[in-house]
């Protein structure tokens, strides 16, 4: 099978515009729940096809079906006009159909190079040809302008580097169809640009590309063709030129969307609830000092890797940190997540799959894990937990196929909502949210922004770390900008705009750095 597939590819280059891969009336059910309904779908050579839809609309499911990770429960897949039944993703890969997963599919304990060639190791006789593999990995990473070393262990590199490794892995194959499930969700703008250049290059070479993202500006820029899914149904299938961003959003959500960002509350001279002095976290964050007021939404901007996450992780006690912290005027001892929780501070991680949720458990234990002490002193009150789950599903609009679904089987956006619900169950006064809307659809984004706004309105204080400039600008009363582990600037009022923030983030303005940096 694999041999045959390779030969086809070598001898018959598919002309541009010809359909390579198609789904015919594809359906998929998980147990009794159907999530995809008779979807027709065509992917053409040399074309970027965007698949958009709300969280849980079935985008990832369709992509997995096209790439052999899932079998359709109805309908079928066609490759070059002939019906194929991929028995596994390996078969699909042999036929040149490659999926870059929304969730990482890398072996954490192996090196970058080992991952890129996993299952297709190059051999010299009986032994592995390390030299060639390393050189090839180096070349691919170079093409992607990624500085990570081929010998670095996956578990030790950053999320965005992991994404770049996934892309390198896909590029290293003979790709006829490249399917990318929210590749830019964890990338910086610069890295995204690099990815877009690669996409253009592949497209020029006649590769068919299927792309999904919740960032509609990317779609408008990249796509030649757009398919919109809503609740598992195909609701639109149009040329990209005919659809504006607003129209996309509307087609996805099924209603008109306006005023994504609520009008900010006035904070005025409210009292300070959190004061941090000279906080140093490991060797990453140095001498960070900041203050947070009651009812304030405080933004933390900066490039990915500027130390924002580390700073907050140091504050809540998952990283070793030193410094003087006062909460509500009282001294606060660093080092324990539980103490932080007792003091009313909670942190919502940016890494929902690795640090936020237990993917192999159901929604209930996940929801209550952080605030388990609220559900009984010795015995856990199951009824109260169920009630809390009911409330969370309602308040946060969590759309789960069934109540007992494993959290790993929730769509990405719904996982994020559950994580938000989990964090809020601890009834915090100070909420630190790291990348609140990563991988979240536009309708839900609006809900989350409203929610953050409402929290501030209730007199709680919110810290938002975000790499999406629009989010920081649209939400925050005041913004700290970080660069290379230091807070380099503070802006508020009319200064909260892209120009000023970017200047601080790039180091064009603000405090001078030590020369060793």
């Amino acid at each position, binding site marked *: 099978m694999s041999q045959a597939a390779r030969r086809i590819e070598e001898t018959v280059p598919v002309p541009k515009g010809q359909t390579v891969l198609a789904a015919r009336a594809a359906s998929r059910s998980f147990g009794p729940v159907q999530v995809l309904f008779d979807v027709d779908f065509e992917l053409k050579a040399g074309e970027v096809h965007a698949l958009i839809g709300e969280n849980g609309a079935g985008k990832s499911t369709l992509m997995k079906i096209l790439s052999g990770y899932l079998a*359709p*429960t109805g309908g079928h897949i066609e490759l070059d006009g002939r019906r194929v039944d991929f028995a596994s993703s390996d078969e699909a890969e042999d036929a040149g159909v490659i999926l870059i997963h929304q969730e990482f599919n890398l072996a954490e304990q192996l090196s970058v190079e080992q991952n890129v060639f996993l299952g297709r190791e190059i051999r010299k006789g009986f032994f592995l040809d390390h030299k060639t593999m390393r050189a090839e990995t180096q070349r691919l990473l170079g093409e992607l302008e990624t500085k990570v070393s081929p010998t670095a262990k996956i578990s030790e590199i950053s999320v965005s580097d992991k994404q770049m490794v996934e892309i390198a892995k896909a590029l290293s194959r003979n790709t006829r169809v490249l399917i990318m499930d929210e590749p830019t969700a964890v990338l910086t703008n610069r890295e995204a640009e690099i990815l877009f250049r690669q996409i253009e290059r592949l497209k020029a070479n006649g590769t068919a590309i299927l792309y999904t993202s919740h960032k509609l500006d990317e779609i408008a820029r990249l796509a030649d063709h757009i398919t919109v899914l809503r609740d598992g149904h195909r609701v639109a299938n149009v040329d990209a030129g005919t659809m504006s961003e607003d129209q996309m959003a509307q087609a996805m959500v099924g209603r008109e969307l306006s005023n994504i960002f609520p009008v900010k509350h006035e904070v005025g001279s409210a009292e300070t609830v959190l004061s941090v002095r000279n906080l140093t976290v490991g060797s990453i964050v140095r001498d960070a000092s900041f203050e947070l007021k009651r009812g304030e939404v405080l933004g933390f901007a900066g490039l990915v890797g500027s130390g924002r996450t580390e700073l907050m992780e140091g504050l809540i006690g998952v990283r070793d940190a030193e410094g003087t912290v006062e909460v509500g005027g009282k001294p606060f001892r660093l080092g324990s*997540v539980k103490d*932080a929780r007792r003091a009313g501070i909670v942190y919502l991680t940016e890494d929902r799959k*690795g*640090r936020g949720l*237990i993917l192999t*458990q159901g929604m209930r234990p996940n929801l209550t894990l952080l605030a388990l002490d609220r559900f009984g002193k010795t015995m856990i009150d199951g009824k109260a937990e169920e009630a809390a789950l009911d409330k969370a599903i309602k308040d946060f609009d969590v759309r789960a196929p069934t109540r007992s679904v494993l959290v790993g089987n929730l769509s990405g956006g719904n996982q994020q909502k559950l994580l938000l619900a989990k964090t809020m169950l601890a009834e915090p006064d100070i909420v630190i949210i790291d990348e609140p809307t990563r991988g979240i659809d536009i309708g839900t984004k609006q809900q989350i922004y409203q929610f953050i706004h409402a929290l501030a309105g209730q007199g709680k204080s919110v810290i938002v770390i975000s790499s999406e400039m629009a989010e920081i600008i649209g939400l925050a009363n005041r913004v700290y900008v970080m660069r290379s582990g230091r807070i380099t600037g503070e802006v508020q009022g009319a200064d909260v705009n892209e120009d000023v923030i970017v200047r601080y983030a790039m180091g064009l303005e603000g405090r001078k750095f030590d020369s060793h940096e």
Partner: protein
Amino acid sequence: MSDHAATPAKTTSSSGFKIDFHIWGPVIALVVLVIAGAMMNPNFLSYGNVTNVLARSAFIGIIAVGMTFVITSGGLDLSVGSMAAFIAGVMILIMNALVPSMGVGIGIVLVGMASALVVGLAAGLVNGLLITQARIEAFIVTLGTMGIFRSLITWLADGGTLSLDYTVRELYRPVYYSGLFGVAWPIIVFAVIAIIGEIVMRHTAFGRHCAAIGSNEQVARYSAVHVDRVRLMTYVLLGILVGIATIMYVPRLGSASSSTGVLWELEAIAAVIIGGTMLKGGFGRVWGTVVGVLILSLIDNLLNLTDLVSPYLNGAIQGVIIILAVVLQRQKKAQR
């Protein structure tokens, strides 16, 4: 749309008739064993035989309950067999040494029991601290302490057997051989511990935290769970349970030697796995472990009662069952 029916091959079946082997497998196996046993030997279900089987399985059972917590939180303890032997030896030495000063009485037995609990707790603490504080793999730590405890008991017994003072033994005997309303003490203790264990696992924060740590330690840490403390607790709990098992075991033979408790660790781990707890952690159930223990000892008993298969093949049959149990667990996950 008309070709929907044309792809039945890969349709995931979700009909309600399908039995979930992951949940019910061990129970079905146990029922089958009981029925088969009753048909092969009328003596099998006699009061005497049932009491005998249950009382003997109590030692492993009590330990296996503790092991369930350790494994659920992603750990492992290979030292429990040698630990039991060591505790038995220390207990006997202490009781024998106290006979001249205390005289033979209930007091001396109570001191012996207390020392078993203390030594068990200490041994568990050593394992747990090495694992959580010195950050050494559980496998390595307990492989080490397994050798250490085994060697200590051999040394204490000078290569031979430590025997409990005859008069103390007479006094202590009923703890294994008598009971309440015709139910032997070891069975009662096992049952109580199993019930408490099940409740702790399913309905307390400790049980929830064990599963969370075993599934994803990072998530647990970020969710304000004291990961190290919970881990440590599981080993201490197991140590104490090994102490209790030893308290029930010593009156049976009244002696300890280098061959006491050999392979108990493997039987306990096997029982846990057969019961459906995942070896890599994250999910555990105490009732499953109880079923696992019963399955293992019933097989042993059946082979001894019938001459269908040589009892020497007991190990082989147990091995097959363990592997089968894991295969059944796997099947559920492989569905796509």
